[in-house]
C-alpha cells in the first residue's frame, strides 16, 4: 500500500479523449479550474478517490491522483509548481493556457 498523502489533497486526472488536465470538483464533475476542486484530508481521502475513480472506471478520465493543495484566500490551489503548471498551461505561452479561472489572476 502506498502511504497516505499528508495534508489537504485534491484530485487531478487527464481527460481520456482530449488529454487536458482536470480537477475533481465539489459538484462531482471535472473542471479545469482548481478553485472548483473538492479537497479532502486524512480519513476523507478514500471517499473522495472512490467518487473520482468511478469516472476512470467509466472510461472518461485517466489516472486520477491526489495532489497536495494549499489554501489561499477562500480557495484551495495546487501546491506544487508542476500542478500549478497543469492548471494554468505553459508559462511561456500565456496566450494558450487554461487560465480560465479569474481566481488565478488574483492569486
Amino acid at each position, binding site marked *: 500500500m502506498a502511504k497516505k498523502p499528508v495534508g489537504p489533497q485534491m484530485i487531478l486526472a*487527464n481527460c*481520456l*479523449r*482530449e*488529454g*487536458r*488536465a482536470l480537477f475533481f470538483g465539489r459538484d462531482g464533475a471535472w473542471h479545469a479550474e482548481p478553485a472548483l476542486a473538492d479537497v479532502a484530508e486524512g480519513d476523507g481521502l478514500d471517499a473522495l478517490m472512490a467518487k473520482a475513480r468511478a469516472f476512470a472506471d467509466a*472510461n472518461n478520465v*485517466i*489516472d486520477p491522483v491526489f495532489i497536495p493543495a494549499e489554501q489561499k484566500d477562500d480557495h484551495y490551489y495546487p*501546491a*506544487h*509548481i*508542476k500542478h500549478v*503548471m*497543469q492548471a494554468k*498551461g*505553459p*508559462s*511561456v*505561452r500565456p496566450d*494558450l*493556457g*487554461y487560465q480560465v479561472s479569474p481566481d488565478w489572476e488574483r492569486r
Partner: protein
Amino acid sequence: MYAYDPYDKEIVNTRVEEFRDQVNRRLSGELTEEEFRPLRLMNGLYLQLHAYMLRVAIPYGTLSSVQMRRLALIARKYDKGYGHFTTRQNIQYNWPKLVDTPDILLDLADVEMHAIQTSGNCIRNVTTDQFSGATADEIADPRPYAELIRQWSTFHPEFSFLPRKFKIAITGAPSDRAAVKWHDIGLVVRKNDAGDIGFEVLVGGGMGRTPVIAKTIRDFIPEADLLGYLEAILRVYNEQGRRDNKYKARIKILVEALGSDTFADLVEKEWQTTRHHPIDVPEAEIKRIEAFFAPPPLEVLPEQDPAVDELAANNFLFHAFLKNNVRPHKVPGHVNVTISLKPHGGIPGDATDAQMDLVADLADTYSLGEIRVSHEQNLILPHVARRDLPELYEALSRSGLGTANVGLISDIIACPGLDYCALANARSIPIAQNLAKRFDDITRLQDIGELKVKISGCINSCGHHHAGHIGILGVDRKGEEVYQLLLGGSGAEDASKAQILGPGFDENGIVDAVETVVAVYLGERQDGEKFLETYRRIGADPFKEAVYEAH
C-alpha cells in the same frame, strides 16, 4: 529524397488502420489505459502535463516542401498553430486530441510520413548530419544508409520490445554534426584502402543520469554487411541488457559491465553465425535507395556575388547572417542556409504554421524543395545559390526567421521542460529566453563566438546538457526549480562530458552565472581560441572561483 513505393505505402497505411483500431478499442473500454499506453507510445503519442503530445518522425531530418506544408496544416487543423522541432530531428505537437490522432496519421501517410517508433522501447528515428549530401567534407551521403536502417528497424519482429529505447545516429563526414558518440549506436562512414564504403561502429553512448561516450567496437564494417552486424548488436543487447531497473537498461550499461572488447566479441560471434541469412539487402536495393539521394543538379556558379557583398557591406545584420547562418555547399556558388528557430525571446525549436508554410515556399524557390531539421533545433535550406541570399534573407527577416545567431550563445538547445513535459522537474524554456535576453547584442554574441548552450529540465537529458560547452540541468529541490551549471561538454567528434561546476542556482542566478563564465573566458582566451578550447586549456577552477566568489 526517398519516395515510397507500393510496399512502403502499404506498410504505413496498414499502420494507420492498426492505430485507429487501437484508439477505438481504448475509447470503447476494450483496452485499459495500462494496456493502451505502450501501444500509443510506440506511435509517439504521449500524455503530457496539459494534453497528449504527438511526436512525428522526420527520418534523418530530411523534409520536402510538400511534407513541411503538411506539418503546417496539421498544426493548424489539429493543434494550436505551432509545432516544436526536437533534438532528434522530429516534430512534436503539443495539443492533439486522442480522437484526432488516427486522422493526423492519415494526413501524414498521405505525404509519406508517420509517427512509427518515435517512442517506446524500440529502435527510434535514425538521425544524421543536417548538411548530408550538401557538404564538401563528407565521404558519402549517409542518408541512403539511414533509410536502409529505417526500413530494417520498422516493426522488427524481434526488437520491438527492447530493454529500453534505442537510438542510432550516422555521419558521413569526419566533422561530427550528428553527435554519434552520444548514441546507443554511432556510425561513421569510412572508406577503406580499396576505396570501398563501410562504417566505423561505436556502441554504448548515451546521456541520461549516466552519461557515457560511445566506444568503437569495429573499425570497418562493409556497406553490404551493415544490417546483419546491427542485427547482431541488437540481439546481444535484447538478450543481455538489464530489465530489472529502467535506469540501467540502456545498452551503455551493458557495454560498461561487459567491457567493450567482450561486447564486441559477442557481437562478432553472433554476426558470423548469421551471415548466411539474408538480413542484408541485395546490392540492387542499396543502389535503388542511393538513386533517391543522387546529388542535386546544381549549376556551378561564381563563388562571389557583387549584390551579396554590397548588402553585407551596408547591412550589419545581413553580414552577421552571412557569417553565422551560411556555410559553403559542395557545389561552388551554392550554400547551406540555417534558419534559426532561436529568435531572442522565442521558444527554441518552435515554429508557427505560417513559418512552416513560408519555409516550404522558400525551399521551393531557392532550395530545390528540400528542407532539413538539425538536432540543434534549427531548419536548413541545403541547396541555395549564393546570389539568392539577399532575397532569401529579406523574406526570412520579415517573418521573424532571420536571427543571425547560429552556433552562438543564444542558439540554445532546450527541451520543453516543465512548461509541457510530464517528466520534467524544472522549466527549460524561460532559462533559454532569459539567456538570450542577457546576450541580446549581436556584436557581443559574435565576439564571444562559438558557444553551445544546452538546457535540460530533468536528468533524462533531452536538452543534451551533458554535451553542452555550457550545460544547464534543471532539478527540483523541495518544490523549487534549481539549475546546475556544467562546463566543457561536446557533442562533436571531440565528444566530452560536461562537468558540474558546483552548487546550483535559482532562475536568475543561473543567468548571472553563465555571464560570469563568459566573462572569465573572454579574459582568459588566447588569440582566436573558442570557449571550449580555453576551458580545456585552463580547466574548471578559474570559472569556479569567479562564479562562486560572488555568492
